[in-house]
């Protein structure tokens, strides 16, 4: 037993910490972005006065239904070295998203965005319109109505969507692979590392990474369930 432990540490656990840390970095960044964008888009889509909102809703839902490879291709066309936005980023800021962890985060963000957006739209539409009317007639401007009435009444739904987005971002594979590749230590997240290990026939490593990923996801689900239940009723 004492001889196996160092082997386990050096052979499996320590190498796995790199993709694990990277997964968290990428997923949390992506979730933060998806949360802010999804909140705004969901609120806008919940307004009846928004012109063409069902079309916009369909566009916002697209990343949920398109194959990840298609999203990855779009992102490459947009943010690749010869892409419109990619060239602009390169010329203005001197950065490229291809083969970087920021690129992986962008891909995960796009894929996770619809989950926040959908949940936020439903939550904002669930807010009694009379309450927003009441706030307006009491002198509140649109921003104030959002901060003081709509958001406090809808935040639970938005948070639930954000949790789903985090889970989705952690499991992101296809779009990330297309835009950021699978560079160990740079862009190789857990899901990519599992694929690599299986392809290379490193079965022990693959099994360990799979178990580790499952464990992390279970802990995340337990935490989010507890967090959502403990929060005060509104």
């Amino acid at each position, binding site marked *: 037993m004492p001889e196996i432990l160092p082997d386990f540490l050096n052979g499996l656990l320590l190498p796995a910490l790199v993709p694990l840390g990277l997964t968290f970095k990428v997923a949390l960044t992506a979730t933060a972005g998806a949360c802010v964008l999804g909140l705004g888009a969901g609120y806008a889509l919940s307004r009846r006065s928004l012109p063409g909102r069902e079309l916009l809703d369909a566009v916002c839902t697209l990343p949920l239904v398109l194959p990840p490879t298609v999203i990855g291709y779009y992102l490459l066309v947009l943010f690749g070295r010869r892409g419109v936005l990619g060239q602009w980023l390169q010329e203005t800021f001197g950065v490229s998203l291809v083969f970087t962890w920021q690129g992986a985060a962008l891909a995960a963000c796009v894929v996770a965005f619809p989950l926040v957006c959908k949940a936020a739209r439903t939550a904002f539409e669930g807010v009694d319109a009379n309450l927003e009317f*009441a*706030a307006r*007639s*009491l002198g509140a401007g649109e921003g*104030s109505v959002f901060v*003081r009435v709509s958001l*406090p009444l809808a935040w639970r739904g938005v948070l639930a969507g954000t949790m789903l987005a985090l889970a989705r971002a952690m499991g992101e594979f296809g779009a990330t692979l297309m835009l950021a590749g699978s560079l160990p230590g740079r862009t190789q997240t857990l899901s990519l590392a599992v694929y690599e290990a299986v392809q290379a026939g490193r079965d022990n490593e693959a099994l360990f990474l799979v178990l580790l990923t499952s464990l992390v996801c279970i802990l995340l689900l337990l935490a989010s369930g507890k967090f959502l239940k403990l929060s005060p009723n509104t």
Partner: protein
Amino acid sequence: MALRLDIKKTLRCGSCGFELSACFEAEGRSIVLFGPSGSGKTLTLRAVAGLMAPDAGRIELDGRCLFDAAQGLNVPARERGVGLVFQDYALFPHLSVAANVGFGLGRGLFGRLDRAARSRVVELLDLAGLTGLAEARPDRLSGGQRQRVALLRALARSPRALLLDEPFSALDPLLRARMRREVRSLCQALGTPTLLITHDPEDVAEFGGTVVLYDEGRVRRVAAFRDGPEGGDEGGPGACALVLGERFSAYG
């Protein structure tokens, strides 16, 4: 309060449609819009409050134009300076009684209350005997208490006029009679004129004043009485008799 109103609004929901075409002028401490359910009273009130923009027409309150389709003028609800009490009260469920009452006094994006606003809230809660419930959430209140909170919230900003949308219909009959008197005396104490919507003749008897009769989206008649039951024989009972004697198409 002097209200001059001439508005048109068409609502469509699938095959059914509703057309409101209301035109009247009324003046006094109390104006009552009376008519059966679905006769366009609430729509009129929402237009006055600025929650609904009519398709055409003009609304003038105390000589100030609030809406004019011809000029493209539509004063936003927050700048109209009218208080509104909703039929279901529409209290903010995530805020305490005190925060509900003080909502309209808040400044800035987050609605911070300064010292004067806080003391105004304390004063108002005291006036309605709600001091002990200042920190309670609306879902813990009884029907009458909710109504008082909704009333105080609307009155806190010292509005030019108070608009009440069937305020007593959700209460049981005994409480209804008491709240009617309470609302009236509170509005009189604060000197706020009222525009009340109702389909209950008892409300008309209590509030009296100028009665506007609605039927099927049209104003049928405007009759001026003295305000309230203190008006003697010509006051409340007369107004009540008028609405009871009227034949509304909705009732056959």
